[in-house]
């Protein structure tokens, strides 16, 4: 349980940024749905965890928010990516790809491969 949230904390922010990058402005529920769709069960239990992450990103200036109307015409808070957020996303995507590549190579490597 604890490990799961740890992973979440680290990656959730990146997922949020990517979601907003792909879909454009979204409200909290929309972001949650999208992440859920793509990540399967990862977010199924605690959608609420999303909100502290949203706040953190907003405070960092990566995303901005404003009130708007939701699909069923109720007031909802819409989040969008800022220019800074886009830059952050690019940088973190690169980092993530590098890290993933390194980890992948570690897993592939076998004892006999080593000199």
């Amino acid at each position: 349980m604890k490990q799961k949230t740890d992973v979440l904390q680290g990656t959730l922010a990146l997922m949020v940024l990517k979601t907003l990058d792909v879909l454009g402005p979204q409200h909290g529920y929309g972001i949650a749905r999208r992440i859920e769709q793509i990540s399967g069960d990862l977010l199924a239990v605690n959608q609420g965890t999303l909100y502290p992450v949203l706040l953190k990103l907003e405070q960092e200036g990566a995303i901005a928010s404003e009130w708007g109307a939701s699909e069923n015409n109720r007031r909802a808070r819409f989040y969008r990516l800022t220019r800074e957020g886009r830059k952050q996303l690019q940088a973190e995507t690169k980092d993530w790809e590098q890290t993933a590549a390194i980890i992948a190579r570690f897993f592939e490597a076998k004892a006999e491969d080593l000199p």
Partner: protein
Amino acid sequence: MKSLRRLFTRLFNTAARRAEEERLREEIAEHIALQTDENLRAGLSPIEARRQAMLKFGGVEAMKQDYRAERGVLLIENLLGDLRNAGRSISRMPGLATVIIVSLAIGIGVNTTIFSWIQMMLFEPMPAVSGAANFLMVEPQTETGGYPGASWQEYRDLRRQVPALRDIVASQMVPFNVGERGQTERTHGQLVSGNYFSALGLKPAMGRFFRPEEAERSGTEPVVVISYDYWQTRFRGAPEAVGKKLRVNDRELMVIGVAPKDFQGTMVPLKFELWAPATMAPALLGGTRDLEDRSIRAFSLIGMLKAGATSEEAQAEFSRAMGQMARDYPDASAGIGGEILAFWKAPRGPQRMLISGLAVLQGVMLLLLLAVCGNTANLMLARGSVRQREMAVRVALGAGRWRIASLVLSENMLLALLGTGLGAVIAVWGTTALRVAPMIGAFPILFPTKVDVFTLAFAMLLGAACGFIFSAAPAVHLARLDPQEGLRSNSNTPPRSRASKVLMGVEVGLAMVVLIAAALFLESFRSARQADPRFRAEGVLLAAYDLSGRNPTDASEREFAARLLERLRSLPDVEAAAIATNVPVDLHGIPARSFTVQGHVRTEAGQDRAISNTVTPGYFQVMGIPLVEGNDFAEMRDKAAPAQAIVNEEFVRRYLNGAEAIGRSLQTRGGSFSIIGVARNSVYDAFGEPAQPAVYLSYRDLPAIQGEIHLRTRSSNETALTFEARAVLRELDPMLPLYDARTFSQHIERNLYLRRIPARMFAVLGPLLLGLAAIGIYAVVSYAVARRTREIGVRLAFGATSGRVVGQIIRENLGVIAWGAAIGWVLALAISVRVIAKGGLNVSVFLVVPAILLGVATLACWIPARRASRIDPIAALRHE
């Protein structure tokens, strides 16, 4: 950058808390509504749809907590909460809080005041001069270690020969008589080298400073720079002051500029008003040979190190230069070396003496503050034991150790902060009081102390340190609390605190020393008021004159005094007139000089010494001191009589074993004098002093450049004589002002004033320490008693009377107190024997003070002990 931005947003959020909460609530509601809609579309029943949506969202409260932590600065929020809490709990104990705050404030205020003084002398010794502390004194030094000052020629050589020092500056303090003939006024100024203002880095407030040519050539350019205050008071700050002529020592000087505000010269705390080029010395000082004669060492030199040079280099160069001069000019410079000193060690002026005194005072005051902290810690511990239950509840509800500690800490810090604030106010008041200290004696003195950022920082530091010191014990104690224990009983018994008992003892000892000192000072002050000076002070007017500017010789000084006395005696209101070099009961004291007298073999290697005053005939009549044997001195113009001396009764008793004194010869001050009379003993230095041997010499034999005129009036109003005396002096020399005119009673008052300062200080400090000690004892005992409620209950249940319980508690604590008191008593005795040996031991003080102190201590023990003994044993035991 990012983290900074977050911090700001967070701080803002902390403030805009409500709006944020509302936004989150709305967002959650919307989220759940959308999810519910989704679930409904998937075919769930409305209730189930909402339930599933809620489940999926997760714990709302936990999320809110995360959200809040993310949103605001948790630490600050907690801190604000703690502070609110602290404010509440302080307002619940107004009495205790007042005691703590006030005692802290006094401690911090006094310390800050002293610190501002030390800071001034060490770091900002010259107001208006930046980096003044970096100046070094360049002092020629005799073989015996004295600092005779530098001659002008020496200064000119040293400027070239000590390259490690940038710009050496020379200055000489001189009295100036300013004003038109007949209306002169005495002011103090400095004769300075041409680079004086530029080397100090000063910019004129008006006009300009000296040009090189004005300061280089001898006695040509009559210019003067005036102080800002002088400009404001004498010229009302008018810009036209620059260019005006000022008559100084009978010479016309042109005012060329005004020194910057607050600048008071290079011999702080002396305050100078005028600065003239040193090259004008002959013109201003009646043709003195200051500028040529290497043996006239009238100047004081200061300089700053060149970049990269060390004071060792400067010292080496200085010593080499002085060595060379000793070879080149053996008459004037033989045996004179040199020493580079830090500015605050200046051998002239009071800094050196003051700073060691202040350091001691600061030490004592810090100790006092520590005692306050100790008291507060004990009080807080005592209170903490009452609050165990509260803290236990907090711990049980999930407050961490740090939260508890920070709760206690914030409470104490708030107390410390309030104390510091009040202390700063006291410090501001204290330094202002020092600034306006009255002009004492013939010299204008101003201590340029002030409360600035440094001083306030010092106060804050003290306050914070105090807060931490007295927080530590209760915070640690409460944070270690086991909630179960704390909730179950009140008998949580921490280890007996030895430290607090030792502290109590130390405090009592300290209070003892200060109280005895206070009592001794007050006693001596009181007796001074009542003591018989053995001369008649009423009806005597004192006034001074100074022939410094007139370059007099012995003969002219003698003649001047003789003519002055003739004129004064011819005034109808004057009964008797005399001139003397010294006035009894003076701040500076009367010099005691060594002598040899015929018929007395020196007992030990140490020379015999006697008070020495030089007086004109008629002095004993003015002072009302009868001559018990022999006659008064010969007339001033009598050239036939041999050099004469008059001694007092104590002199005869001590050195001549009561034998006949008249006719014996006495050697002192490089001459031989024949004793012609014996005067009655009188007071010389201080009221109530034991009889001192004294030798009076005649003004006729040893004329002096300065004189104190003593006039006895026929009428009852001696002040009225001032005008007549001034007129007489003006007739004799229109350029000479009569200064420092005061009645003898005023003279005595003025000197008592200075004795009053320590007396007052101790009078305040003594009761303060007594109070602090009482609070300390009270705190320790009530803490101890609170811990032992159960034990006391058991004792009472087994039949101990409350008297026995009280007696036991008092006995236990009084032991420690008695130890502290005894040590303090012995210390005070030792100090008083060493310092106040003259007056003999004041036995009553040494008996009464301990009695009072022990009485108060017993009372401070008795109150909490009595309270403890009143406990209902059943209630105490059931409570457990």
